[in-house]
């Protein structure tokens, strides 16, 4: 069955089983490996993508239900040489460790700042409650996000 998806602004026609999770299509068919396959049950947040600007776990979205929606992966969020404001802040605060969880974190935090450009510390922590990092604590990640409060570059995708 052919499924037509709008991924990172590009229309892709794929001959896939429409029941497949988006995550498997991204990684297996399109070689977009930024979203990580970890828990496969929506708990860890490593596979987050933006679907119509909302951060959702791609492991739980059947591709056959995504036609007509805008899918943005970590690869499409910003040009490689020009990280977006969230990515810049995470780099500046030196919080990136093994990198497994960070694509998902960036997606979640970018989505949060679209919706709420000046979140409180509690709101940032709440938004990250579905993104698990096993390397480090979360406080410096939160600090990095709070440094962006009111940043128009994030608010306007």
């Amino acid at each position, binding site marked *: 069955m052919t499924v037509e998806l709008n991924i990172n602004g590009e229309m892709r026609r794929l001959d896939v089983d429409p029941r497949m999770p988006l995550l498997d299509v991204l990684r297996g068919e399109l070689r977009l490996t930024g979203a990580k396959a970890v828990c496969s049950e929506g708990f860890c947040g490593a596979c987050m993508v933006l679907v119509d600007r909302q951060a*959702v776990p791609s492991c*739980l979205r059947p591709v056959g239900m995504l036609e007509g929606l805008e899918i943005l992966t970590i690869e499409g969020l910003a040009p490689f040489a020009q990280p977006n404001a969230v990515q810049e802040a995470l780099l500046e605060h030196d919080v990136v460790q093994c990198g497994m969880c960070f694509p998902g974190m960036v997606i979640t935090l970018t989505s949060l700042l679209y919706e709420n450009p000046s979140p409180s510390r509690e709101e940032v922590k709440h938004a990250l409650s579905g993104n698990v990092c096993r390397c480090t604590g979360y406080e410096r990640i939160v600090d990095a996000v709070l440094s962006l409060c009111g940043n128009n570059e994030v608010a306007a995708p």
Partner: protein
Amino acid sequence: MQAERAVLRMSYPRTVVEALHELADAQATAVAGGSWVLRAPLRREPLADRFVALNKVDILGRFDVASGAISIGPMMTHDRLARSLPHVMCLEALRSAAACAANPGVRRIATIGGNISVHGFPASDFAAALISLDAMVQIAQASGERVMPVTEFLAQRMTLQRPWLVTCITVPIHLDRASVHERLPMRRAGDYPSAILSASASRQGQWRIGVSSVEDQPKRWHALERALQGVNAAQAEEAARELAGAFSGRDTPGTPGWYRTSVLPVLVRRVVSAIEAQLGRV
């Protein structure tokens, strides 16, 4: 037709009648958000042969607020419901259930209809909340539509004649009632609560208590409802301790059944305190 269906792994009905027609195929399963069906392999279950996607049946996504009740389409996600509910204390249990289940990403895709319809999910936040709020569930079957109390639906859902589909959930609005939802997870997100308890109460002391995640099936706690009339939070905890033996906690890896029942009295104290606060009694 059969050959066509063999390769048609997903169908997109536009109406409830079309959806029921598709679901008459025993190999098909309804898909609302997808968060339950796609985890079938993790439960060591086969993925259904055919998905019947409900996202194009517009009427299933409705949300109507009238003076006496709200009508919730089963395709409402947790996130959308939490944002849509009017701020009245009698709906706080439902809002809280919608806002705190799972994690933010899952709440954006998981639906209320899927949450109460799936087989084998004992930790439904909505089940407890809807029991405490005397919700009604409308289902469609080949023979027509019917409406039943949520407790009846939850008890019958696995034995209903296929195909069936939840088409609406109605929650009465009683402005004089307060309501609260409490859950006890081990972590802030990423696991299922050991116990879930929802309560609503009128100023005259008429209680409704829904319990989920303790046993395999959610249930209304009638004996506690009677015991809570005219008692304070500490007395409520004591009453719950005496009555918790009515539950047979389910054992899962990491959470023994005895633990689930032993935390119930603490949740009862919390909900009674919160209800009293809503009603302005403390």
